[in-house]
């Protein structure tokens, strides 16, 4: 009934050792409890406020976290648990990353070899030409250095870097910051097209409005914790959303009236136990301070004890 799960992330936790005072250190959990799933041909957007640890999710899946990071939880690809070695063998062929901006390209390497990762064989050359043609970029592009690219070209090139490997999972990390609306929409449509061709896409963004236009499902993160996973269609009405933070997010969208309430995330060192949103939630009670499971609700998931489904279950 459902398409096969391509990527499953369960109860992911990523923490850092960092200096908190001039001479003392502590361990900070940037991602506390994150779960997300991507199926084949599906475009899932992971949406959350700034500083909710979204980019770390991408780095965690690809195994490129810095040395002082600790990672716990389970990441499965096509049903098998991914070890660091497994990540290393999968990245760059089964799983590809679309980076944020130009700084992710080697400034002294021409685009052709850069796209092919230095390979020189005829097959990779052919593939490069095909992909450039697909994004209506001409062959002269191969001779260019990154700094010579214009804004629109850059976006297409960054996406091309991922497609050269024909991956089955594409992770896009904030692919549209600072772009004007027209260009951002076009980038999003490229991702939709890739998903329609059968690959799974994990889109990491803070732009909910843009994500809603192309995504199949939205996974909402707050203070490093997954709080809701819902179909994009659930965002048509406030009532079909389950978590109070998601609802606040919905009300804040310009098209839904731009109404706002204080939802500032607690500082990472001071996130309360239980629901991270309890400080701003009208319905918060003592029970919210206990551990709250991420449970199935309709087509998606939610981490709240106040939703109707949850109430009905108890």
């Amino acid at each position, binding site marked *: 009934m459902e398409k096969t799960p391509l990527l499953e992330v369960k109860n992911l936790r990523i923490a*850092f*050792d*960092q*200096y*908190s*005072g*001039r*001479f003392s*250190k502590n361990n*900070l959990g*940037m991602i506390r409890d994150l779960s997300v799933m991507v199926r084949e041909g599906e475009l899932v957007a992971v949406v959350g406020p*700034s*500083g909710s*640890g*979204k*980019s*770390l999710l991408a*780095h965690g899946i690809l195994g490129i*976290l*810095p*040395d*002082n990071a600790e990672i716990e939880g389970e990441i499965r690809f096509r049903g098998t648990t991914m070890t660091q070695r497994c990540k290393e063998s999968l990245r760059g062929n089964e799983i590809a990353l679309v980076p*944020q*901006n130009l700084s992710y390209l080697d400034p002294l390497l021409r685009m052709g070899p850069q796209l092919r990762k230095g390979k020189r064989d005829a097959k990779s050359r052919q593939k490069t030409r095909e992909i450039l043609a697909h994004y209506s970029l001409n062959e002269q592009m191969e001779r260019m250095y990154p700094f010579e690219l214009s804004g629109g070209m850059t976006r297409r090139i960054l996406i091309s870097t991922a497609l050269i490997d024909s991956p089955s999972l594409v992770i896009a*990390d*904030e692919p549209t*910051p600072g772009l004007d609306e027209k260009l951002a929409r076009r980038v999003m449509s490229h991702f939709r097209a890739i998903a329609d061709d059968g690959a799974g896409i994990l889109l990491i963004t*803070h732009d909910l409005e843009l994500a809603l236009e192309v995504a199949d499902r939205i996974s909402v993160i707050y203070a490093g914790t997954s709080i809701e996973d819902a179909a994009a269609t659930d965002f048509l009405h406030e009532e079909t959303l389950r978590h109070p933070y998601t609802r606040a997010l919905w009300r804040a969208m310009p098209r839904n009236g731009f109404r706002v309430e204080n939802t500032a*995330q607690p*500082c*990472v*060192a001071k996130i309360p136990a239980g629901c991270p949103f309890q400080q701003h939630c009208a319905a918060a009670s003592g029970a919210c301070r206990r551990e709250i499971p991420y449970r199935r609700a309709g087509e998606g998931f939610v981490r709240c004890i106040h939703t109707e489904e949850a109430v009905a279950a108890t």
Partner: protein
Amino acid sequence: MNVQAKEPARRPNPPRATPRFQINRRQFALILFLLAVLSLTAVAIAGDRCASIAMETDFTQKNLAPCLSHPFGTDWMGRDMLARTLTGLSLSVRLGLLTATASAAIAALMGSAAAMNKTLDALFSWLIDLVMGVPHILLLILISFACGRGFRGVVIGVTLSHWMSLARVIRSEVLQLKQSAYVQIAAKLGASHLRIVLRHMVPNLLPQFLVGLVLLFPHAILHEASITFLGFGLPPEQPAVGIILSESMQYLVMGRWWLAVFPGLLLVTGVLLFGVAGNCLRSLTNPASANE
């Protein structure tokens, strides 16, 4: 610490070291810094105290290899090499203090002046290129020659030939600060010139300047020793490390290796200590890991 990272969130920057050593790294740096400063002070004082012993000649005790009563041996006039070396090193440390401080002061002045005015800036970069155009040692020889050699020549030479790189750092730092949004905003918010300098410029420059100053010491000391070794620096009657090593040359062939090895070793240790102190200071004031 920078936990609620800026958007676009990327890898949190500092610290990148391996976790094993991290717990104590900061404290370790502080302790090391204090130790280095302490031992250098000790050398400076000890050397001053042994100045008279260093000059004592005793021909019954000449050319002794290292032994218990003379750990560094004695020279052809029976002078105790440990005392001579300590006195020499103490002189080096104090000379280094004097010249490095003077040089750093020049650097601060030149660097900030260049950052404030375009004409001065052109002049400044020309001057740097000019001074760097002559090989360092040759410049020292020329200045020493101009001053008729001796103590004055060394001090002036070392002072005038070490300010360039720090001045460049200060210049670019001041330029960057001047361009920075927060300094410009402060001006629009009505802050006076003095207030901007005191509140925004100085606190940002001071750590850089101090680190630069401490890291000037080793260079100053080494160049003082070198120029003295060549015969342009301090007069031969002075127990300076350069003199000691220069004198040792003629006895090396006779196998009196201790005359060169120990004094040099002590000098290297002293210079290393300054380097350690500077690097510790740098890691303590490093903006990438400071203030959190």
